[in-house]
């Protein structure tokens, strides 16, 4: 029995996935008081093949804690899952902690998924961090070759930035994981 086929989340995904009606179950503030590790503000802008912002997009994040661990044996002050809807400029923003290296995972990274109108199946990607020496040996970054930089966030003021380009020049490496 094959998997149920995917369909786009459409332009009104906020109703079911955020708090347009009921209280949000998953938000963009993942870092609770007292969370261990380095605070991380991750921002990014999603653009389409013409460079226009994807204002109706939504990004999900899923990550280990600062020590590379997952529930139920991880930092209870961290929500490992986050969600952020893009603003009119196509920008998302998460408040979390920098993920540690999960055993067997290569360089430290967070997993991300992107949903929007015109996206028939949610797009998987990952967020690595520029300057981490483990990046050089990460199997996924190696496989991505000269496009690996599209999965590596870089410092932007006090925050880190990972822009996502859906199509064309500088197109993000999306994953079939």
């Amino acid at each position: 029995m094959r998997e149920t086929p995917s369909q786009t989340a459409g332009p009104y995904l906020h109703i079911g996935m955020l708090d347009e009606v009921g209280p949000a179950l998953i938000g963009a503030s993942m870092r609770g008081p007292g969370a261990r590790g380095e605070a991380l503000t991750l921002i990014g802008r999603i653009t389409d093949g013409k460079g226009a912002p994807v204002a109706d997009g939504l990004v999900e994040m899923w990550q280990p804690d600062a020590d590379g661990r997952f529930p139920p044996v991880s930092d209870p002050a961290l929500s490992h899952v986050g969600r952020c809807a893009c603003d009119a400029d196509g920008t998302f923003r998460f408040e979390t902690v920098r993920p540690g290296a999960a055993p067997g995972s290569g360089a430290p990274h967070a997993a991300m998924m992107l949903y929007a109108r015109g996206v028939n199946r949610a797009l998987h990607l990952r967020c690595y961090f520029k300057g981490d020496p483990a990046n050089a040996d990460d199997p996924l970054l190696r496989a991505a070759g000269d496009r690996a930089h599209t999965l590596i966030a870089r410092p932007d003021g006090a925050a880190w930035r990972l822009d996502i380009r859906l199509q064309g020049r500088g197109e993000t490496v999306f994953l079939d994981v």
Partner: protein
Amino acid sequence: MTTPLRPRRSGWHPPALTPAYRSTRLRAPTQAPLALPSAPVELRGPVFGHADLGPLDGDLHLNAAADGQSAIGPRILVHGQVTDEDRRPVPHTLIEIWQANAGGRYRHKRDGYLAPLDPNFGGCGRALADADGRYAFRSIQPGPYPWPNGGNDWRPAHIHLSLFGHAFAQRLVTQLYFEGDPLMAHCPILNAVPSEAGRARLVARLDLARTEPMDTVAWRFDIVLRGAAQTPFETRPEGP
């Protein structure tokens, strides 16, 4: 879950670019996705429980209605089972639900369709599957609605569903349609699914046995999430 998942087969899910659905033209990646076995991060996922749900989350008749009021529209019960590709139940998975009202209007600031809002309908709900993967929620049958796709395009009646499964790589967002809806044949979003067999899996079937007489029509919709990767020694027959 930390066991590897079965690779997704090409040609089953909708491809990224389906030009008849115009929004895909500038949003579909041009490069094939990079295929790699899921890492430990993607093989785990958030866990939800009953504490995460409110008492009316699975009752869209009432969860946004004033006291003593109820949403307008045909009363329906949607139920089914969540399994993996090996037909094993996926227990306790969270299902998020959103839909238009009976007139085809979403309660969303960017939906300006002529059909009026129903003050007693929010169009948002949640359900948690039980230990056998069985789930149910109550709602009203959504109406079809027109949408800007370059022509005279109407969405068939549908309910949006988001499932978490047990691993981030198992996550599924899809739409449920209703058996017999003549608009399905004309929908570029549903027809982005390449095969007839795949499209049939998105159609809920009338379930007279679960219908509540003088009250509610029941629809059955089973959902399949990715299964564990098989070893080369296992061979199982593969149905649609």
